[in-house]
């Protein structure tokens, strides 16, 4: 299996596919001694994206992860658009193989084109309910992605069209629900995960241009 993982890792790191969202993890397979988890993923979330992240797994009675991840959309200008998230993901409830976990994360996002540079701070809150075995898992998840405050800085091109165009902080600016399914296959130190679902605006009437998300991910648990 290891020999198959290497090409997959190379593929993900090369960013030849795209996207990234929350850490998808097999909680049943996570031992107390595995303190560090790194992950890469790629897929589609608002755009074609790829990314990587790190989670710290402290020695607590209830499993939780403290994480930081970054995702970048594809394109020929690196870091003009990006998303960085940090926060906590924790197990809320466990009954036999059923587990309910939640996450609350802070988000920083940046977007730039010829018209405007947007800097956004937001949050992502979500729940995942799944059936977890040591070798595999399947779960349903729902997240609310809120763009709470966004700074607009317009270019000279934008001011040519509309000289009075506003620059500054707008609160709030967006909210989207993401809901779908996730599943994974686990080895002792590795999770290969797949998640996919739908995105709808907070008014439940509109959707982004790409109203779906999908992510292929790979996690390595270090320790134990």
């Amino acid at each position: 299996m290891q020999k198959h993982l290497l090409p997959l890792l190379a593929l993900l790191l090369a960013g030849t596919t795209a996207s990234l969202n929350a850490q998808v993890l097999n909680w049943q397979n996570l031992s107390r001694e595995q303190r560090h988890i790194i992950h890469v993923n790629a897929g589609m979330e608002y755009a074609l994206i790829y990314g990587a992240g790190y989670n710290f797994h402290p020695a607590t009675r209830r499993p939780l992860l403290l994480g930081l991840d970054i995702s970048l959309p594809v394109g020929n200008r690196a870091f003009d658009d990006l998303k960085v998230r940090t926060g906590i993901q924790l197990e809320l409830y466990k009954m036999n193989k059923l587990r309910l976990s939640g996450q609350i994360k802070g988000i920083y996002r940046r977007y730039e084109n010829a018209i405007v540079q947007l800097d956004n701070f937001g949050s992502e809150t979500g729940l995942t309910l799944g059936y977890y075995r040591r070798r595999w898992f399947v779960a349903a998840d729902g997240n609310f992605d809120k763009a709470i405050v966004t700074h607009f800085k317009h270019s000279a091109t934008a001011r040519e069209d509309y000289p009075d165009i506003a620059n500054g902080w707008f609160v709030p600016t967006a909210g989207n629900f993401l809901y779908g399914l996730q599943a994974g296959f686990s080895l002792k130190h590795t999770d290969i995960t797949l998640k996919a679902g739908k995105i709808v605006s907070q008014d439940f009437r509109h959707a982004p241009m790409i109203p779906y998300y999908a992510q292929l991910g790979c996690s390595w648990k270090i320790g134990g």
Partner: protein
Amino acid sequence: MILPMQKQHLFIGLFLLAASSLLFSCDKSFGDTRPDGRLVPPTVTEDSSLPSITVNGVQLHAEAYGHPDSALLIVIHGGPGSDYRYLLNCKAFADHGFRVVFYDQRGAGLSERFPQSHFSSVEILSDELHGVIAHYRTHTDQKVFLLGHSWGAMLAAIYLNDRPNAPIDGLILGEPGGFKWDDFSGYINRSQDFKLFSESLNDAIYADQMLSGKDDEHEILDYKLDLLTSVGDSKDSPVGNEDFLPKWRSGAATFMAYSELGPRIKPDWTQNLHLYNTKVLFLYSENNKAYGRAHAEHVSSAFPKVELFETKDAGHDMLSFPRGWNNSFPVMLNYLNSLK
């Protein structure tokens, strides 16, 4: 002392409390707190100093140049959901004995806004064009010419298809996508053929996660469409424009409504075009790789008499930038003068 089960419930409760406080923030409108100013200019219903007319009960941003009794030249902008600012070069016809009329279609530019549900058919825009002509026509002998670009050229054809006997004395069409659904959708697909991993595609869609609006929040919906349409002016767009197109303000509700309506009704607006016996001047551009002579010949064949003209050294918006305008204007003026 807190028992283990109580502790678990407390844990879940605290998490749900934190999550719900974020969820309840969905009720707030875009930019409840904001700096001074706006993201898009006000419409005629918000700024009474803007020039406007009322047609079929709708307040339209409009202005006219030239003597009121001169031959009417109605300029029809593209989109749906664009505006007439990018066609203001056409003011030059006023110096050659024409009454040049510009107007923003309802829901677009600086004209009155409506929710998406308002745009249930294309006929309302055809009726609106009829009303604009009637508004500016001062006498029954006054000749009327239509100059439509892109979607505006399609709307001019829709108008003639709806009203085969309308007194239209000449017709200039600039790169209409098509008068049948398959022609139109084929052109749109070719014109939006961005590379999968290009910056342009990313520029078009990545801001979706930071900006969203409800049905009546036209400011942010229109602004988002401004961001989207600016991608069409980028260097890697196949439509071959020279630069960014000047505009007042996009109209998101009309754009979204007709984007959804088209695939549903798959229109054919050609049934009566063979009845229009005046020669049509049909412009297409050299640099629009999505259009080309073959598509121009195919689309224009709905009319019995056509003069095709390739605008050299220009892209889709050949009437907006110096090279395209300088190449097109004399041909258009000759055509209009021959029919005046």
